[in-house]
C-alpha cells in the first residue's frame, strides 16, 4: 500500500517534469525560428471567404470569428447526422429482425454495403460521383419551380422573417410545451380512469389557437423568398451547398449501418422469456416491445450508440476532402496555412473536439444511468 503510493507519486513527478520539458522545448524552438506564439492571431483579420456561414461573416472578420463559423458548421452536420443516422439506424435494426424475409434481407444488404466501404470513399462518391455531376444551374432539376437541384447545390424557398416573428417563435415553444403536457395528461387519464384519452385533436386545437393569437399580435410578418435563375446562378431562397449534402448523406448512411447492428444486438440481448412472459399476460406484441423489450434493450444499446455519436462527430472532419468548411477545414486548414502557428491551432482544434465528445458522453451517460437496473438483474 505504502510502496504503491510512493511509486505512483514518482511516476506523477516524472510525467509532470516531462511535460514541462516539452513545453519549454517547443517555446525555445519557436523563438529561435522567429515564429509567433500565443493566441493574438485570433483577433486579426482573416481575409478569406467561407462558402457556408450560419452567422454573418465577411473577409474582414477576425480569425476568432472563423473558429466560431467552423465550429457551427461542424455542429450542424454532426447534429443533423446523429439525428438521421439514429432514425435510419433504428428502423434498419428493427427491419433486420423482421419476420418478413425480403425486409430483413434488404436491411442486411444495406448494412453490409454501407459499413464495409470506407467513409472517405462514400463522401467522395456522393460529392464527386453524384452531386458534382448534376446539371449546371441553367439546366437545374426543378421541383415545382420553387426548389432547384444543380451542381451548385440545392436551392430551396425560404421564409423571410420580419418584425414580430418572435411571437411565432414563442407560439412554437408553447406548442412544444403543450404537446408534452398533453401526453402526460393522457397517460395520467389512462392510469386514473382506465381509458386512454386523445392527444392529437387537442394538440391541433392548441396549434390553431396559438398561431391565431400570434397572427393577431403580429400579423403575418413572413415573406416567401422563392429562388429564381438570374444569369448563371440562382438568386433568393437558401442554398444548401453540395459539400454539406454529400457529407451529411455519407455520415448518416454510414453510421446508420453501425447503429442498425447495435439496435439489432440490443433487442436480441433481451431474454426470450421476457417476450414470453408478456405474451402469457395477454400483452399484444406492440405493447410488449414498447413497455418490456425496448426499455431493456436500450440499456445495452446506449453505450455503443454513444461511441457511434462520437465517431460521427469526429468523422465529420473528413470534410476537408471535399472542402466543406468545418472546424478542421477552416481552422487547421486555411487559418493554419495563413498564420503558421501549428501548435496553438492544432491544440485549439483538438480541444474543441475533446469538449464536444466529452459533452456527448456526459449527456448519454446521464441518460444511461436512468435506464440502469436496480439490483442483480438476471
Amino acid at each position, binding site marked *: 500500500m505504502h510502496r504503491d503510493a510512493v511509486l505512483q507519486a514518482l511516476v506523477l513527478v516524472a510525467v509532470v517534469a516531462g511535460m514541462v520539458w516539452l513545453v519549454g522545448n517547443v517555446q525555445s524552438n519557436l523563438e529561435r525560428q522567429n515564429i509567433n506564439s500565443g493566441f493574438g492571431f485570433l483577433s486579426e483579420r482573416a481575409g478569406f471567404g467561407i462558402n457556408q456561414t450560419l452567422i454573418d461573416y465577411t473577409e474582414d472578420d477576425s480569425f476568432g470569428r472563423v473558429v466560431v463559423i467552423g465550429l457551427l458548421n461542424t455542429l450542424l452536420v454532426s447534429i443533423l447526422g446523429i439525428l438521421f443516422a439514429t432514425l435510419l439506424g433504428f428502423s434498419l435494426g428493427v427491419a433486420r429482425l423482421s419476420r418478413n424475409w425480403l425486409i430483413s434481407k434488404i436491411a442486411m444488404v444495406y448494412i453490409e454495403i454501407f459499413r464495409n466501404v470506407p467513409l472517405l470513399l462514400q463522401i467522395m462518391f456522393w460529392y464527386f460521383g453524384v452531386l458534382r455531376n448534376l446539371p449546371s444551374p441553367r439546366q437545374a432539376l426543378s421541383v415545382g419551380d420553387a426548389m432547384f437541384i444543380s451542381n451548385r447545390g440545392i436551392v430551396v424557398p425560404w421564409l423571410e422573417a420580419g418584425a414580430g416573428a418572435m411571437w411565432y417563435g414563442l407560439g412554437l415553444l408553447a406548442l412544444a410545451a403543450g404537446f408534452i403536457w398533453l401526453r402526460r395528461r393522457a397517460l395520467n387519464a*389512462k*392510469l*386514473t*380512469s*382506465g*381509458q386512454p384519452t386523445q392527444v392529437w385533436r387537442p394538440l391541433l386545437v392548441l396549434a390553431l389557437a396559438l398561431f391565431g393569437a400570434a397572427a393577431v399580435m403580429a400579423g403575418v410578418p413572413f415573406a416567401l423568398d422563392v429562388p429564381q435563375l438570374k444569369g448563371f446562378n440562382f438568386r433568393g431562397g437558401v442554398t444548401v451547398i453540395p459539400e454539406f449534402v454529400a457529407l451529411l448523406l455519407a455520415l448518416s448512411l454510414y453510421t446508420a449501418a453501425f447503429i442498425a447492428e447495435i439496435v439489432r444486438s440490443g433487442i436480441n440481448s433481451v*431474454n426470450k*422469456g*421476457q417476450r*414470453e*412472459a408478456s*405474451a*402469457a*399476460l*395477454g*400483452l*399484444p406484441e406492440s*405493447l410488449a416491445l414498447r*413497455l*418490456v423489450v425496448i*426499455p*431493456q434493450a436500450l*440499456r445495452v444499446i446506449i453505450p455503443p450508440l454513444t461511441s457511434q455519436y462520437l465517431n460521427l462527430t469526429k468523422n465529420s472532419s473528413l470534410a476537408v476532402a471535399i472542402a466543406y468548411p468545418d472546424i478542421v477545414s477552416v481552422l487547421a486548414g486555411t487559418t493554419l496555412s495563413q498564420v503558421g502557428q501549428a501548435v496553438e491551432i492544432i491544440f485549439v482544434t483538438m480541444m474543441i473536439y475533446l469538449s464536444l465528445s466529452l459533452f456527448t458522453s456526459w449527456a448519454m451517460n446521464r441518460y444511461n444511468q436512468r*435506464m440502469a*437496473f*436496480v*439490483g*442483480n*438483474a*438476471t
Partner: protein
Amino acid sequence: MTDPVIRISDMNKWFGTFHVLRDINLQVAAGEKIVICGPSGSGKSTLIRCLNRLEQHQEGTIEVEGVSLDGSLKNLESIRSNVGMVFQQFNLFPHMSVLENCTLAPIWVKQKTKQEAEALARQFLERVRIPDQADKYPGQLSGGQQQRVAIARALCMNPDIMLFDEPTSALDPEMIKEVLDVMVELAEDGMTMLCVTHEMGFARQVADRVIFMDEGEIVEENEPEAFFSNPQNERTKMFLSQVLSH
C-alpha cells in the same frame, strides 16, 4: 362432471422433423389440479406451452374455455389473459418494481386504473406473503421471492386457469417450500392448475390426477395414490424408482 375447461384431442406437434408431442388427448375439468411429470425432453413443458399458444401445435385441436386455439384466432390476447403462467426462470421484468410487474398487464390489457391495479396487486402480494417487497426491484429479491412475485403477477389478471412450468426447478432447496406452500394454498382455493414439476410430495398432496409423459406421449395417468403405489407401465415404474429413490 361439468364441461371441461381444457379439451385436447389427437394433438401432434413437431419441432422441425422431431416429433415432440404424439396423439395427445386430455380433458381438464374446472377446479381440477393436474401434475405432469416425466423425464426431461418428454414434451411436458411443450404441452402446457401449447395451452396459451406460446407454442403452436400442427395437428388435432386444443380448446380452452370453449375457444379453439388455431391460426384463425383473432383475440389470442383475451385467451391468454385468462390463462396465467409461471415460468421456471421467473421472467419478471427487471426494469420494473415488484408492484409495476404486477400492475402492468391489468393496466394495459384489462384497462384498469392505476389505483385499482395497485390495490389488486397488493392484495395478491399479501397472499404470496411478500407485501413489504412491493417497491423493490426483482434483482433485489431471492429466487423464492421472485417466483412468488411471478405467481402474484399472474394472479393479478384473475385467470381461470394457472399453468406452472417447473416453477421450483431453478430454486435453491431451502426456497422450494415457500413457493410450494403458495401453490398449495392456491389449489385449496379451487384454482384450475396444470403443473409440470418433479415435486412428488406436492403431487401427492394436491393433485387430482398425475400424468406421466415420455417421448412425447401420455404414457399413464391416474389418481396420485394409485399412480405412486401401483404404476402400470414399465417406463413409469422406472421413472418413479429414479425420482423416489433418493
